[in-house]
């Protein structure tokens, strides 16, 4: 469904129901191109295979989101968030659709479709306005599954002088003809399923410090489905994913960090990022360093290993909009030679409404 069609549909729906529906949304219009490199390609978004080449392109990362929230009273609400991406020709898809119920003042139950909260930026990855960079460093956000259908329980409390937010989530997600695996990794149609997803995360904030620790376990099924045959690549393969973030932000400057690891029988990686920036009024220059590092002790002879050094600038020219420009230097150090070296310039405007 095209963006305009679903906006009209939602508006028509709200008229018919006479219900109180609040709309909000976000948009990122981003363009860019490689400026040097050994194969003129910059893989900016692994999950959806957003690639820039040596000619200016606005397709790989331009994203629009629209959210409708209906508050039914007594702690019950329903939220739908549609997302349309340049990569998919702006066909919309449901990014979030969930029912939320406040069991107590501090305990909330949600059920439906959501982003899978594997790591710090997973859930608001598409909301560019909410973080300093053009995108969370690509080396750490390379996973083939982004959403899940299931439920979560969220608890908020005060521990010491800080605020503790813990959540438990469970669910499942099947991705037929998965974009990353089918078009990038295996060059044949690949179905990916994450079953029995069970995760827990704890987020603690005190003054200018925030720490997040999360653990997710699931069983992975992967099947190659060429027109003539189907071949099972992985069946019920156990995956343990752990992520930790530590952030400092006093309003004038910030230091952000994340570390994560994926461990399964045939594949393991440990990845990290560090970023820092200074705010001068509406101007925020920043730097970021990140690395994806496959564990050589497990399986493959050919290893995936890449680093990104980024230098960028955010200008909050409007209370709800920011212009960003970013230079990325990607070094592919792996024997697999997955992405190749590249230097790229991307720029764009992020807004929320």
């Amino acid at each position, binding site marked *: 469904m095209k963006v305009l069609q679903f906006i009209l549909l939602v508006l028509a729906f709200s008229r018919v129901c006479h219900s109180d529906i609040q709309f*909000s949304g*976000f948009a990122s219009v981003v363009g860019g191109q490689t400026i040097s490199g050994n194969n003129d390609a910059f893989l900016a978004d692994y999950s959806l295979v957003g690639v820039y080449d040596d000619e200016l392109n606005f397709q790989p990362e331009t994203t629009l*989101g629209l*959210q409708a*929230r209906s508050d039914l009273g007594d702690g019950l609400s329903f*939220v739908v*968030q549609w997302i349309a991406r340049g990569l998919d020709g702006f066909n919309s898809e449901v990014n*979030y659709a*969930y029912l*939320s119920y406040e069991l107590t*003042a*501090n305990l909330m139950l*949600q059920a439906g479709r*959501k*982003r899978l909260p594997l790591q710090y930026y997973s*859930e*608001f990855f*598409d*909301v560019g*306005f*909410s*973080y300093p960079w053009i995108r969370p460093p690509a080396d750490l956000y390379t996973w083939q599954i982004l959403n899940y259908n299931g439920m979560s329980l*969220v608890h*908020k*409390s*005060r521990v010491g*002088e*800080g*605020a503790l*937010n813990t959540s438990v989530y469970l669910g499942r997600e099947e991705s037929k003809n998965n974009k990353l695996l089918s078009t990038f990794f295996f060059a044949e149609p690949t179905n990916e399923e994450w079953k029995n997803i069970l995760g827990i995360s704890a987020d603690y*904030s*005190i*003054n*200018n410090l925030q720490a997040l620790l999360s653990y997710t376990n699931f069983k992975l099924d992967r099947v190659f489905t060429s027109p003539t045959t189907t071949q099972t690549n992985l069946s019920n393969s156990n995956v343990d994913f752990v992520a930790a973030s530590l952030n400092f932000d*006093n*309003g004038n400057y910030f230091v952000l960090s994340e570390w994560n690891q994926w461990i399964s029988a045939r594949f393991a990686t440990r990845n990290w990022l560090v970023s820092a920036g200074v*705010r001068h009024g*509406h101007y925020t220059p920043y730097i970021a360093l990140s690395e994806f590092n496959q564990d050589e002790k497990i399986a493959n002879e050919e290893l995936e290993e890449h680093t990104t050094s980024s230098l960028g600038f955010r200008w*909050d020219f409007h*209370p*709800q909009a*920011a212009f960003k420009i970013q230079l990325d230097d990607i070094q592919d150090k792996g024997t697999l030679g997955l992405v190749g070296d590249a230097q790229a310039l991307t720029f764009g405007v992020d807004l*929320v409404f």
Partner: protein
Amino acid sequence: MMLVIKARAVLLWLLVCASITAHADVVVIVHPNNNSVFDNIAISQLFLGQISSFPGGGKAIPVALKRGSDTRIDFNQLALRKSENQYKAFWSRLVFTGKASPPQELENSEAIKDLVANNPALIGYIDSGSADDSVKVVGTF
């Protein structure tokens, strides 16, 4: 010589007065029956959706002023340590992930005071000049 010193003293006095009127305090208010004890960190956590109940218990619903109000700018800067853009960026993380909804925004301090005076679940901020006996002041910035 004395005249110069006196003139300087008067000038200094005028400057002090001017700076006081330019920065009227922001006060945080709750219903008079609310017996929770507040520290500034708890106030900040309530207005940033990090906690959702009062320190003494009971569901807490924050209400804020609309964008463009000087009192809002002062409160966000002094209590939350955020500019308008940082406030918006912070809330966009919660709004688009279902973690919390931002405070309802009202036109002026009087409107906030009237609501808070009639609802024990609310907590709001207003300019100190608007406060009266109908509400209880639990923080000053």
